[in-house]
């Protein structure tokens, strides 16, 4: 059974299209990264999957059922973001106790061990925590719930680098011991790319790419060389990004479907071939479509005046 299935999913916000005919499906027990710029529609999509928002049209199914207002989906899903609302009257320990009552797979030992490891005080309240601490606590709730579908929307907001590292490690450890479907949206792809099995790249409410992380890492190829030499190899290739450099050279990111033969010829022609990091690739793939160009253009324009 598919954990998640979306077909022609649409959602509108204030007369703007937040999601545009989104179609994809995700197999059970994978860690999937959801990548996109701010405002690309990641959060909207994740909330629809978690049953917190209602789709406008299209099909969305979580374990074969419509998630909105669905108790079954709610019982098997946890949605963690950086704006979690917990009752202010409860202490952190009491919130964990509640989690234990509500989630059947909840691992209270894990929750308490992580709670101690990250130095929480049981008498603290959720609204007294700093941003980073809050994210850390929410992460504990998300991991301990052991929900078959666990959704983390920007889980690392405010966490320092050491805690982020611990989080990735804890996530992987717990996933290895208890495989489940995990969706992670993030701005730190380079930090967690090795954890991910698949990536969904969302751009302006549409699906830009859905592939395995290993494939994404080999999806693009960076070519550096004299402009006319490089250009001669780009016929019928999909150019993802291009940047002019000094001395008539340029750097081009192109979809990697070169044959070994072409590869050799490019090397012989003096073109430098480099891999394109997944994180950079995602930035190129989600470049605004309507002629805004790069931030460089903003400055070029002002110097012209």
């Amino acid at each position, binding site marked *: 059974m598919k954990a998640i299935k979306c077909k022609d999913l649409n959602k509108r916000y204030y007369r703007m299209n937040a999601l545009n005919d989104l179609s994809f499906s995700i197999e059970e027990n*994978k*860690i999937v990264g959801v990548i996109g710029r701010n405002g690309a529609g990641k959060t909207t999509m994740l909330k629809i999957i978690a049953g917190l928002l209602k789709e406008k049209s299209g099909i969305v199914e979580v374990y074969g059922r419509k998630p909105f207002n669905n108790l079954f989906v709610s019982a098997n899903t946890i949605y963690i973001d950086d704006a979690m609302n917990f009752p202010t009257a409860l202490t952190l320990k009491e919130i964990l106790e509640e989690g234990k009552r509500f989630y059947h797979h909840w691992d209270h030992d894990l929750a308490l061990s992580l709670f101690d490891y990250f130095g929480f005080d049981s008498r603290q309240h959720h609204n007294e925590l700093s941003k980073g601490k809050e994210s850390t606590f929410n992460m504990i709730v998300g991991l301990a719930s052991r929900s078959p579908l666990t959704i983390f929307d920007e889980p690392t907001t405010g966490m320092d680098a050491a805690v982020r590292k611990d989080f*990735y*490690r804890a996530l*992987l*450890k717990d996933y*290895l011991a208890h495989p489940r479907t995990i969706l992670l949206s993030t701005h730190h792809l380079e930090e967690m*790319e*090795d*954890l*991910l*099995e698949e990536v969904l790249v969302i751009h302006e409410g549409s699906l830009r790419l859905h592939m*395995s*992380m*290993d494939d994404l*890492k*080999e999806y693009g190829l960076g070519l550096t060389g004299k402009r006319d030499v490089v250009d001669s190899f780009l016929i019928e290739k999909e150019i993802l990004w291009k940047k002019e450099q000094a001395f008539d050279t340029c750097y081009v990111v192109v979809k990697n479907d070169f044959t070994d033969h072409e590869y050799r010829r490019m*090397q*012989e022609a*003096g073109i430098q071939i*480099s*891999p394109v*990091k997944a994180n950079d690739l995602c930035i190129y793939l989600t470049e605004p479509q309507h002629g805004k160009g790069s931030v460089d253009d903003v400055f070029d324009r002002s110097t012209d005046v």
Partner: protein
Amino acid sequence: MILDTDGLKPIYIQIAEWLESEILRGNFQADEKVYSQYKLADLYNINPATAAKGLTKLAEEGILYDKRGLGKFVSTNAKQIIMDKRKNQTLRNLVEDLVMEAGRLELSKDETIKLVRDAWKGDQE
């Protein structure tokens, strides 16, 4: 081994090469079970699917074989396969790179071979 996460080499290839090196070093003997994808994932902090891809690659090359439900085991002739492969592919690629770089630096064939010979001697002493 520490993974080179920024490099050209995909993680699963690095995992496969690490296993190959351990087989060459004798840390995995013939007909011995190698680490599972989960063990590798834990060891290198990577997704188990990536680790599995590395294992599958070695199985396809005949270095490992599958025992249903038990995992992957080292083939009897694993060492031989790895050595042949490294000679034929890895070394050849290195030499080709060397020749190309020599061409860019306008080194003659003789000069390049002399360089190799010198390096060989230096190694022997």
